[in-house]
């Protein structure tokens, strides 16, 4: 896989349109492209003028598209947990996870986790593709998604550390009182401890994401804004937040450009391209043409 593109921006600025434009352009050039929307409010199908579909479909030659159903991912995850729990502790009925789906879905942190879960699938299933293009949700959720691996890494480090200390002390007690003192469900070794192993697995996942998100060569962040004050201000905020994660915006795309808009050219706008306002209905050829314009001089395909 060569590169990943993340299209960021407020709702309605034209992320989906521009992500489609890039995908069509690249697939026309002969590259294998996978375009996914993890925005709960999908509109890829509208732009591509196809009937909505579930799962992955090769919409045009070399272009596979998916409007990711995050609910399915969450349900799959919870079923997995439920199965594992009932496998080991069938008497532990305190959490009836099926009934709790709606609550868990809304629990702070679960939406971004589902997105990461989906993203992991995408990145591993489609590593044979040349390019992956991601249409992201509105910025608040996207920032949380991008930040989640880093926040989680710290927690996982602490919890692993604490868990090792617990295992340590179990061994101290077992040494004095004999190994039979502990129920055989209670792990004494690092290798037997399912909790520690799970923590390590999660750590690997988060490290994987951190690596990808921070990869300056092959991960590109494209920020889409509109010619209005609010959009520009928000753009600056996003840029600042991302800098806190050590992520730089590669390119700012000023979409729906109007002649009357003036703005200060400063840090945020050192690297930007303008895209004119397109009139409905927008044809595929137009989108391809636009992409060839704004990718010129920035990317070498």
């Amino acid at each position, binding site marked *: 896989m060569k590169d990943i593109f993340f299209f960021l921006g407020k709702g309605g600025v034209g992320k989906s349109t521009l992500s489609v434009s890039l995908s069509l352009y690249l697939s026309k050039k002969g590259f294998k492209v996978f375009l996914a929307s993890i925005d709960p409010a999908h509109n890829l199908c509208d732009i591509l003028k196809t009937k909505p579909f579930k799962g992955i479909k090769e919409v045009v030659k070399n272009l596979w598209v998916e409007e990711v159903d995050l609910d399915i991912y969450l349900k799959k995850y*919870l079923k997995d*947990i439920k199965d594992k729990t009932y496998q*080991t*502790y069938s008497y532990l009925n*305190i959490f009836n996870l099926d009934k709790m789906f709606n609550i868990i879905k809304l629990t702070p942190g679960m939406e971004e986790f589902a997105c990461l879960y989906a993203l992991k699938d995408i990145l591993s299933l489609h590593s044979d593709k040349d390019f992956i293009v991601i249409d992201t949700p509105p910025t608040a959720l996207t920032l949380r998604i991008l930040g989640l691996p880093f926040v*989680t890494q710290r927690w*996982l480090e602490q919890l692993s550390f604490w868990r090792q200390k617990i295992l340590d002390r179990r061994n101290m007690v077992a040494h004095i009182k004999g190994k039979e003192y502990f129920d055989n469900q209670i792990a004494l070794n690092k290798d037997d401890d399912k*909790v520690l192993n799970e923590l390590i697995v999660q750590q690997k996942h988060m490290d994987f994401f951190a690596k990808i998100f921070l990869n300056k060569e092959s991960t590109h962040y494209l920020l889409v804004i509109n010619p209005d004050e609010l959009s520009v201000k928000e753009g600056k905020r996003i840029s600042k937040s991302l800098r806190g994660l050590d992520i730089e915006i590669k390119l700012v795309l000023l979409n729906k450009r109007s002649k009357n808009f003036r703005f200060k050219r400063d840090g945020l706008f050192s690297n930007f391209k303008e895209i004119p306002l397109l009139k409905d209905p927008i044809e595929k050829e137009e989108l391809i043409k636009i992409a060839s314009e704004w990718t010129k001089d920035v990317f070498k395909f």
Partner: protein
Amino acid sequence: MKKLLTDIKKGLSLFAQGFKQASIEHIERELLEMENGFCLIVLSSLTGICAPPPFIGLSLLPYLGPEIEIMLKKSKNLDDKLAQWSDLVDL
């Protein structure tokens, strides 16, 4: 005579048991509290308290059975902790 020997043996083993207990009781107590705390932190995120991201709690849930039991047992006695630690003091 045989009974005396078995009695002495039993006595010695009790003696040893007592000393083993003396050599590990504080660590054991600490272990229980650590397991309690670990579980509290990990699972409290499921109630929305600022804690590790909730998916960590969910992912670990299948494996935290023993710790959940400890947590529930300990929470029953939270209103009477003072006396439980008094035997540490050796007055």
